């Protein structure tokens, strides 16, 4: 039960209400009793239909009653099929005009024809949805009814959604239904996108509409490189639109979520893992993936050196998440040969370890840079400037602080690293409910930056040193360090991590 305010009532009122409710209970019980008796007797007739209406109009969540109605409908339809179907609507295509005449004649048609059976159900669900627009059962019964009818008017259903979304533009049932019926009515995606734009123009604080939009754009304006959610040209326009919306009321979150999605990589959840780091010597190999993948056996891993291709098998997990792995297989490692490593369809060249060290490695830092046209870059810079201008007036504006940090990183993540961290530090204070989130995000950004710089340090890849990063609250991307021999992290963090301090190549050698 939601949103029912507790109100003080007088004794008299309470009594009156009690009596009223007692009557309702009696009526409910009587109707339910009768319905159950009739069902047992197989009487799926008009009386049954009217009995269920009485209850459903008050309480559309009684799913069994909808089931009974469906039984009645199926019974009627099968009787009609058996030959009593003299009034059944013809199956050929009708013009709009004919349909209208038919609709006006509807009242004169006898009760039992397929068209009126369907209409009856549709009308009832519409009435029930007026009472409770969030009734799963009523929505489902409507879908079911339409699915039974080969001549369902899907266009009318789209109109109905337009109407319902005017009453409540956030009702997710209506939006779900809209996606279903626009599919059936074959409404072009461009037309749906226009509908979203109109909805957002009326009220930008409409997460549902932004969501609907996010489903349409990647298909309509695909990104060829697949490193952004949509084409750069369209992305630029969307960024413009969403920032205008967000600035209308910077405290409303709806548009900011959309903005963050636009700035992201558009990566699909089910994409295959990629090689983050790899190292081998004569006694074995370690592998880090950029995302967890516990079922590594499903992926083919091969070492290619000179003329030889060696299948690497029996990987053992190094961490609990399935991001780093070791393989204790002996190789005849040849210092003078060039090696490459293949994971499914990704092939990377290995670099030999420096000095007298035996072995080879590969490393790709986690923060990839997406392609960025001149125009898109200019747009990002304009947006950042607008955010900075707003922060002049409202220095504590949470969403502006976060978004400007995201924009800075989208423009040049390493040059703006320190400044973006300052924004997070500020956010920890102005949005203290989510202090823990900002701390972890700062750790992510710090590790992304440190891992990006790592290949340029003298100890790479044998040592990784961030002992001076004393503010680090967690150690994301730990699997990338599996190729190092030695890692130095702040003592406090080391204590906090305990057993989950990432294992290194040296550690694993000792264990083998």
């Amino acid at each position: 039960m939601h949103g029912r305010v507790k109100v003080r009532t007088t004794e008299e009122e309470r009594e009156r209400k009690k009596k009223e409710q007692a009557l309702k209970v009696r009526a409910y019980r009587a109707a339910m009793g009768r319905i159950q008796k009739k069902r047992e007797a197989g009487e799926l007739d008009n009386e049954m239909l009217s009995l269920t209406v009485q209850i459903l109009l008050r309480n559309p969540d009684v799913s069994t009653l909808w089931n009974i109605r469906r039984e009645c409908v199926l019974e009627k339809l099968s009787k009609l099929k058996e030959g009593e179907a003299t009034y059944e609507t013809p199956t050929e295509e009708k013009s709009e005009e004919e349909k209208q005449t038919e609709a006006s004649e509807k009242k004169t048609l006898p009760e039992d024809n397929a068209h009126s059976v369907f209409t009856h159900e549709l009308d009832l669900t519409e009435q029930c949805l007026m009472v409770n627009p969030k009734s799963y059962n009523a929505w489902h019964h409507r879908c079911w009814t339409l699915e039974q009818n080969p001549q369902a008017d899907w266009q009318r259903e789209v109109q109905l959604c337009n109407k319902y979304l005017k009453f409540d533009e956030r009702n997710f049932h209506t939006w779900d239904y809209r996606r279903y019926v626009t599919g059936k009515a074959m409404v072009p995606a461009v037309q749906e996108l226009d509908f979203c734009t109109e909805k957002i123009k009326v009220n930008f604080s409409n997460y549902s509409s932004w969501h609907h939009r996010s489903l349409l754009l990647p298909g309509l304006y695909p990104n060829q490189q697949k490193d952004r959610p949509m084409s750069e040209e369209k992305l630029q326009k969307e960024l413009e639109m969403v920032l205008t919306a967000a600035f209308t009321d910077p405290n409303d979150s709806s548009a900011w979520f959309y903005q963050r999605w636009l700035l992201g990589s558009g990566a699909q959840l089910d994409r295959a893992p990629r090689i983050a780091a790899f190292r081998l010597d004569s006694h074995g190999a370690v592998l880090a993936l950029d995302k967890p993948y516990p079922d590594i056996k499903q992926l083919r891993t091969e070492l290619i050196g000179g003329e030889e291709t060696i299948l690497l098998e029996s990987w053992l997990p190094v961490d609990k998440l399935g991001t780093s792995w070791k393989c204790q297989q002996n190789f005849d490692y040849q210092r003078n040969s060039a090696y490459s490593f293949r994971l499914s369809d990704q092939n990377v060249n290995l670099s030999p370890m420096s000095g007298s060290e035996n072995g080879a490695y590969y490393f790709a830092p986690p923060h990839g840079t997406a392609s960025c046209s001149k125009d898109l870059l200019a747009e990002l810079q304009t947006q950042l400037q607008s955010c900075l201008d707003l922060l002049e007036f409202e220095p504590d504006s949470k969403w502006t602080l976060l978004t400007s940090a995201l924009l800075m990183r989208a423009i040049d993540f390493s040059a703006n690293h320190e400044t973006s961290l300052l924004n997070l530090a500020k956010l920890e204070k102005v949005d203290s409910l989510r202090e823990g989130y900002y701390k972890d995000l700062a750790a992510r950004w710090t590790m992304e930056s440190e891992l990006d710089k790592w290949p340029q340090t003298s100890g790479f890849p044998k040592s990784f040193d961030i002992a001076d990063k004393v503010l680090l609250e967690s150690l994301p991307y730990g699997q990338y360090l599996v190729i190092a021999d030695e890692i130095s992290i702040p003592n406090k963090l080391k204590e906090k991590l305990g057993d989950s301090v990432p294992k290194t190549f040296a550690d694993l050698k000792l264990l083998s």
Partner: protein
Amino acid sequence: MDFTTFVKPSNGGGSGGGDANDGGQKLQFWKHVEYIENHGKQEDDYEYCMTEFLRMSGIYWGTTALDIMGQLERLERKSIIEFVKRCQCPTTGGFAPCEGHDPHLLYTLSAIQILCTYDALEEIDREAVVRFVVGLQQPDGSFFGDKWGEVDTRFSFCAVASLTLLGRMEQTIDVEKAVKFVLSCCNQTDGGFGSKPGAESHAGLIYCCVGFFSLTQRLHLLDVDKLGWWLCERQLPSGGLNGRPEKLPDVCYSWWVLASLTIMGRLHWISSEKLQQFILSCQDAETGGFSDRTGNMPDIFHTLFGIGGLSLLGHSGLKAINPTLCMPQYIIDRLGIKPQRLPRP
């Protein structure tokens, strides 16, 4: 059948529990016990009668809340088990919410949960339940709620939760396909999940999907950073959590978000202290029970999620609750089930 016969004569007061004060409002422990115990004692109560279509879930909410409070013995074990048994459909094997109603996955899970609480699974035909659940899986991996064809990620959760509790996840449903379907309901924008592919993310359905991945040991498939951020953004200045952006806070959404964050190892992304204050502010100090928001009418559904939320937050005097199955942890341990949980980063 009514709740009346499930209630033992009140013995007043009693031992156990504790009026713990964790800052701000106190947990009205005994008021809540009384509220649940009395729920449905008056069989002609209007609300009670009008909610018979979800009675099985109602009993699950009540027994679980009482068990978390260490007061399960206040309800009559035997009559509850008898009731559950009478609701198993002899033809399909599924459970109806109460006699005279049709079986459905929603009430099948509630029935199994109640029987697990009472350690009484052997009282029913378990194979019939397995057949019911398996029969509802569709070629695309999704689940119907019943034979009438509604598809929803809630039903995917109900299916795997029921089978897990029955210890029958192996060699029954097609888990890979089930996973694929739930994954197809993930939204790129926020990493969240809706009821079907393309549906807007919603905290209740996110709980079902995160729970689904926890039970199928596939939490690695989630985009934890993206989804965790969206979830922690549900916390409002009152400390309560909403189910979608720009909506009002609610005790039940608080549970769904809180449980999801806990499963994902990201509980520290919200303020536990403020959430606890919000949940406690939704107690009805007169009648007992929790409402959706401060000052509203209490009900049994929000009472479980209020108590459950407080338990997850570590409130004293309450038994630990399992975030995936929303049941006391000791029962999950007794069954030897280990729903997956991600470590804190």
